[in-house]
């Protein structure tokens, strides 16, 4: 019933009559109401299943950053900030070298050890709300999350921006991943497996970072996104073996993108657009696989991603075009130079990453062009090396430095590109309570 209340609220956001801004506010208000209903309805029922709650419900205390009322309620407010400094830009033309990429406040909580929730917003942003969801624990294997949260696809994308190994996610992940969306997701785990499967609204009112801020008009079509991700960890926390952790995963999403200039774009590290929107129309399919291997002080991880966009009736003559294909991959190596794994205490990590983002099309035989209706889209790829160090001073403060070299490669020589790569250096101070 609680889930139904939330999904009903999401469904009712589907067709905004008064513009996008109004739609966003209305959806958030309805979502907040739905979450409240979820908690009110779920809490008494779940409380009956919780023996501890009856014993501890009278104990109210402030404990390690959390407000607790026994096991009945936990409230954990947080505030997290990142400030970046551009140490070197490719052409030396940037005047303002300081930035605040994230300034967030939020509230995590739990009711009767059964319902978790999170609300988080950016302090200054056009679309400030980030995660707003409730998560009902039916069992370890079955949990239901409803609200606005990240669509499960790339593991790097669903990693918090405050826990990244580098200042920026790989370009491919940034460009190709769906971001937060309104939806309902079933998820759970066992000792070796975990899964997530959900349906999302993916349409009016919310901009999609992967589409570079384009708001997708529905044109009366029913839009939506289904997503699923599974992971298998044959080895986990083995302190004695050669392999401490080993994990593999796969993910898929499927959505409908309306007709328009909504193809995926590419940005350089300096945030200039190097690959423009292409006309798309039809299904967008994302596929991803990921792997992670940790041994001693070393961790290797990576992902392979692909997005296929249909382009129905998008040729100059009105016929179908071959699908637009975007591929991405990265491989990260991390060496813990100081400190232990699994502890949020002082540590130093040295890391390197190679990532690649490439654009092309299904047709690879005709003459290639860069135009947004080209059947053979002239291929273009971005190759980026990132070298970095992360110093976790304590659980609240972190300092990072990255040197990044990105280069564009046009294998067919259709574009006039600079032949050499560009170096950028960034520093970051992060603190959070």
């Amino acid at each position, binding site marked *: 019933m609680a889930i139904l209340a939330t999904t009903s609220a999401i469904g009712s956001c589907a067709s905004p009559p008064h513009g996008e801004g109004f739609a966003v506010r209305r959806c958030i208000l309805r979502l907040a109401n739905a979450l409240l209903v979820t908690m009110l309805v779920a809490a008494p029922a779940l409380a009956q299943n919780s023996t501890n709650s009856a014993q501890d419900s009278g104990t109210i205390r402030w404990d390690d950053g959390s407000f607790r009322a026994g096991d009945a309620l936990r409230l954990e407010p947080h505030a997290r900030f990142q400030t970046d400094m551009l140490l070197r830009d490719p052409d030396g033309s940037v005047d303002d070298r300081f930035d605040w990429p994230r300034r967030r406040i939020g509230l995590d909580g739990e009711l009767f050890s059964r319902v978790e929730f999170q609300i988080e917003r950016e302090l200054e942003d056009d679309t400030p709300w980030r995660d707003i969801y409730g998560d009902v624990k039916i069992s370890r294997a079955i949990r239901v999350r409803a609200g606005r949260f990240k669509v499960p696809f790339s593991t790097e994308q669903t990693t918090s921006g405050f826990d990244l190994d580098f200042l920026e996610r790989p370009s491919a992940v940034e460009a190709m991943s769906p971001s937060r969306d309104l939806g309902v997701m079933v998820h759970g785990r066992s000792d070796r497996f975990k899964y997530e499967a959900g349906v999302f609204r993916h349409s009016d009112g919310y901009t999609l970072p992967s589409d570079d801020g384009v708001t997708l008009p529905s044109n009366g079509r029913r839009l939506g996104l289904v997503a699923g991700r599974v992971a298998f960890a044959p080895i986990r926390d083995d302190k004695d073996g050669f392999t401490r952790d080993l994990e593999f995963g796969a993910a898929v999403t499927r959505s409908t993108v309306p007709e328009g200039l909504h193809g995926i774009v590419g940005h350089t590290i300096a945030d200039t657009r190097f690959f423009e929107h292409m006309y798309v129309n039809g299904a967008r399919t994302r596929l991803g696989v990921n792997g992670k291997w940790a041994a001693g002080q070393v961790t290797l991880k990576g992902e392979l991603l692909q997005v296929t966009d249909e382009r129905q009736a998008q040729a100059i003559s*009105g016929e179908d075009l071959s699908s637009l294909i975007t591929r991405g991959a990265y491989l990260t190596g991390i060496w813990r130079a100081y400190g232990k794994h699994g502890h949020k205490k002082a540590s130093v990590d040295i890391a390197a990453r190679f990532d690649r983002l490439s654009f092309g099309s299904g047709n690879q035989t005709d003459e290639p062009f860069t135009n947004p209706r080209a059947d053979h889209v002239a291929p273009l790829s971005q190759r980026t090396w990132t070298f970095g160090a992360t110093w976790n001073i304590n659980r609240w403060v972190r300092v990072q430095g990255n040197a990044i070299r990105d280069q564009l490669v046009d294998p067919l020589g259709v574009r006039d590109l600079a032949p050499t790569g560009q170096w950028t250096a960034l520093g970051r101070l992060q603190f959070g309570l």
Partner: protein
Amino acid sequence: MALSSLVVAASANAQTTDDLFNGAVLQSIQVTMHSRDWETLRANFTSNDFYPADVTWNGLRVRNVGVRSRGLGSRSGIKPGLELNFAHYSSRSEFLGLKSLVLDNLTTDPSMIRERVAMELLRRLGIPASREAHTQLYVNGQYAGLYAVVEPVDSTFVARTLGDGSGALFEYHWLQPFFATYLGDNLDIYRPLFEARSQQTKSTFDLYDPIRELFRTINDAPADTFRDAVNKYLDLESTLRLLAAESFLAEWDGVLGYAGMNNFYLYRDAATGQSRMLPWDADHAMIGAEYPLLSGANENVLMRRSLEDPVLRQRYFSSVSEAMQSAAAGDWLAREIAAEAQQIRESAWADPTKPYSNEEFDAAIAELTVFAQKRFAFVAKQIETLR
């Protein structure tokens, strides 16, 4: 695919830009665009956004051409002026050796022939000027109106007309009345006036210091050294020939225009560093048979000081005489006006998007006929008086 490319290439080789700009023929160009793109281009006609299209001329089809709305005062959402950029979506693409083409919508001239006649005369005089021809334009199979297909002034044009296109080419933009005065030391003042159309990666100093020095010299050089000092930066011989031809043509929106300098490019030779002016957009030529020969000359510092120099003054009036004689030879001007008017009349009348009535078209042609009859006597008298 490779075979079809060879066939197209062979066909393209069989025809040249001379065929495309052959004024004896009323050309026909077909543009195929996604219908939504054509609607968007017309709705956002003030934007310079490109849209992909296939272009067909004389059986030759060029795919994936970049098309954008163009023009300044002539911009229109009903009858858009167009740039066809063959290299926009692939740096390797071209058409008959051209990187781009201009489709002039002819909306500022009811006669629709002023520019073509003017450019034709300039070329007769040996002045590097764009080749032009009239063309019927079809978009997605529908007649979109009568246009002029114009050879753009770019490095390809400069290489064809001057033998070397490796220098720096600038397009002059009218931003406010400018009469060749010295604007000061700040190079950033010159940058928006003279937009670099080649060598864009060069530094501001490399591009604009010679332009600043040109106008400093025009204004500050002593009278006795004016000719040599300015000639170091600007080819005065070719400049005065252009100014003289524009004066004969009663071009009131040209280099000596009513509101300051306008409608020209500046090309700086890579070897000598000397610049020359190249004409552009003469759709206000032949404004009136009694348009004064030296209109705008006193306001423009370059022209005023050139006329103060006896040698340059003599050259200028000799060039006016030359232009007049060339236009009069065999009654060329009157015959050219009549021939072009006859060639386009049917298509102009059928043009559904022109901003003039058919009666206004006929009246404008009649005005030009009068110009061709009366201009020679008026100019001859002015030369006699002013020389």
